[in-house]
């Protein structure tokens, strides 16, 4: 998790300075916007487990994200279950969905674009199901009652919500770092680099990949539950829509897939760019997306290893080239 170069240290310091500075800004606008970015960062960190470390690029993390959000919402709205229990259940549901998709896809040896398409199909099927059944609120979605309090996990004070999200993001990143340097992480990276070789060395690749999907699903489910608790409303398009899946993968790709800090830096950077462009071009709604897209294309073209990869080349502390932060 430590930076390997001066460039990475500066990038991480900038992100931390920005996150800390929000406590001293009187504007709720930037804090509200960053709350959104942090929720996306959690799902980006989830994608990073499978896509970054495992080389299994999913286009359907919305399936796990939405399942977590819906599981928590159904328990609270339809069955009156306490928000804390529902919070945990959402994470478990996300993990179960991840494991289910992984078990099915990897059992039949799906890889690369086939795996990506299967995950996308799962998310779409779940979206249609969620908009069709009464238990998920049908087309109207589900809404939590506005009842601020610790027992309902709803907080009026934006600073409290922000602090909780910061702690959760830090925990997810710490878990990611621990996973990366654990035996499991080494197996997962081995699967990414050469699955046949990993299998020849005795690694149960199927088990490792399903496990990675379950862990990733748990993080994505957590992000879905966070979305629900912050905005108190979900419907099928919001949590199972393709926008979620795209946001999940774009942050790590820009920030640096397979690194601990990359997903957070990429997500924050992209959101800041979008928000900054919106403020600069406030009289022309939509133009900010054009600017956003241009920067995105440039980043994809010129930064194949993301921002963390670029930063790693500036003022290297050590000579281990493959070990990014």
């Amino acid at each position, binding site marked *: 998790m430590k930076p390997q170069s001066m460039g990475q240290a500066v990038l991480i310091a900038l992100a931390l300075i920005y996150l800390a500075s929000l406590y001293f800004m009187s504007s*709720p606008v930037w804090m509200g916007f960053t709350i959104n970015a942090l929720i996306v960062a959690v799902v980006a960190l989830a994608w990073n487990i499978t896509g970054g470390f495992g080389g299994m690029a999913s286009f359907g993390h919305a399936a796990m994200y939405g399942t977590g959000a819906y599981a928590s919402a159904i328990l609270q709205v339809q069955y009156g279950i306490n928000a804390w229990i529902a919070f945990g259940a959402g994470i478990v549901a996300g993990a179960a969905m991840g494991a289910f998709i992984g078990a099915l896809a990897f059992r039949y040896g799906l890889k690369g674009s086939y795996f990506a398409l299967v995950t996308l199909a799962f998310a779409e099927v779940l979206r249609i199901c969620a908009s069709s059944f009464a238990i998920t609120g049908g087309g109207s979605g589900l809404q939590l009652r506005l009842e601020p309090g610790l027992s309902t996990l709803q907080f009026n004070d934006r600073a409290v919500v922000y602090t909780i999200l910061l702690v959760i993001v830090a925990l997810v990143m710490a878990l990611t770092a621990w996973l990366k340097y654990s035996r499991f992480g080494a197996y997962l990276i081995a699967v990414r680099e050469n699955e046949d070789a990993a299998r020849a060395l005795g690694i149960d690749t199927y088990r490792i990949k399903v496990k990675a999907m379950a862990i990733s699903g748990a993080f994505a489910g957590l992000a879905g539950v966070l979305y629900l608790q912050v905005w108190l409303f979900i419907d099928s398009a919001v949590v199972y829509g393709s926008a979620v899946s795209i946001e999940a993968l774009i942050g790590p790709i820009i920030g640096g897939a397979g690194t601990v800090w990359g997903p957070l830096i990429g997500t924050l950077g992209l959101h800041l760019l979008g928000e900054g462009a919106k403020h600069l071009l406030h009289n022309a*709604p939509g133009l900010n997306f054009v600017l956003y897209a241009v920067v995105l294309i440039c980043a994809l073209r010129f930064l194949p290893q993301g921002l963390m990869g670029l930063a790693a080349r500036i003022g290297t502390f050590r000579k281990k080239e493959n070990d990014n932060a």
Partner: protein
Amino acid sequence: MTFTLNRRGLLKATGAAALVSGLSMPSILRAQAQTVKIGVLEPLTGNLAYNGTQCAAGAKFAADAINAAGGIKSMGGAQIELVVVDAQSRPEIAASAVDTLAEAGVVAFTGASASALGLASSQAAAKYDLAQVFSIGTAETIVERGLPNVFRFTPGVNKCTSVALENLKQLNAAAGNPVKTAAIVHEDGPFGSNMAKIMAEQLPQQGIEVVETISHPTPHRDFNNIALRVKASGANILIPSNYLNEYTLMARALRQQRAELMAIYSILGGAASNIKFVRENNDVAQYVMDCNHWYDPNKPESQALAASVAEAGLDLTYDVMVSYATIQVIADALERGASTDRKAMIETLAASTFDGSIMPYGPTKFVNGDNVNSQPVNTQIRGDKIELVFPEEYATAEPVFPVPQEG
């Protein structure tokens, strides 16, 4: 006499000018009328951009008209200043945008074209004691949450459906009950699915059997199979619930496949009350009927709005109308309350009995945030116009039902 200006001199001159202009500014400001900020939270980008942009235009027309008429008189002619923010067709962005509105100091805001956006924004606004007057938000959950800052000026889906079915019953009875069967074509999202479900439950109670129900995703482009299925079902009427583009393509496919229907009868139809559909697909649009939000075309303010919209080269859609009307409602509350205090605004809106809007409603009466005196009306496309055909007191034309068959 020569006059030279060096760098130091230029700096001095600039500083002096800034000082003079700064000192004189307060007197200029004192001379100007006070402004009152009203928020407009609409999806200006994303898949609801058309509706959101139309709504934002409607709000601007209303603000311009009120300002031109002397502003808020009880506040010394205060001028309305709109703060327009983009919800990007995403609920979490709509909720975040409320922070921007609150920081800008708006007294209330209107929005947000779709129920999902409005649900999120009004919940966020409740934390600021900021009133949201819904332009469009048909989901009943909007007014079932007990939020004191929610004011839905236009009718919800339950009222729209019940009025539409009652009007259909009357139309059918007046024609000798020729309609016995119906087909439902709906998009598979929140709006279409809910509407289809209500129709399937309630049409049989009117003696109309639902012989075919077809769902499709949004976007969807090839409606030939759907048109053929509708034709094969032998349904007398078609009840569609889908958005502008799909509605348009569906109507064209039905014409191409020569589906013989007694009527296309929409409820909150995506294109049926849209002049763009009438203009661009005039032949297939003929006699399409809709139960939807619409203004009272006989009021002078409505006619002035229609003229302004035409002058601006925009489409006159119900989005423009309802957004215009919600600004009128907020302006009336400002006029009566003479205060920019947010809590006072909520109280004033809750007690509103405003009857001067462009909509064909009775005096505003908010019960749990729902305007019980709102109502949808039936429109029918005739020639190049959208005529109001129900209720009679506002009608500009007689309804044609069933439609005359070709050939």
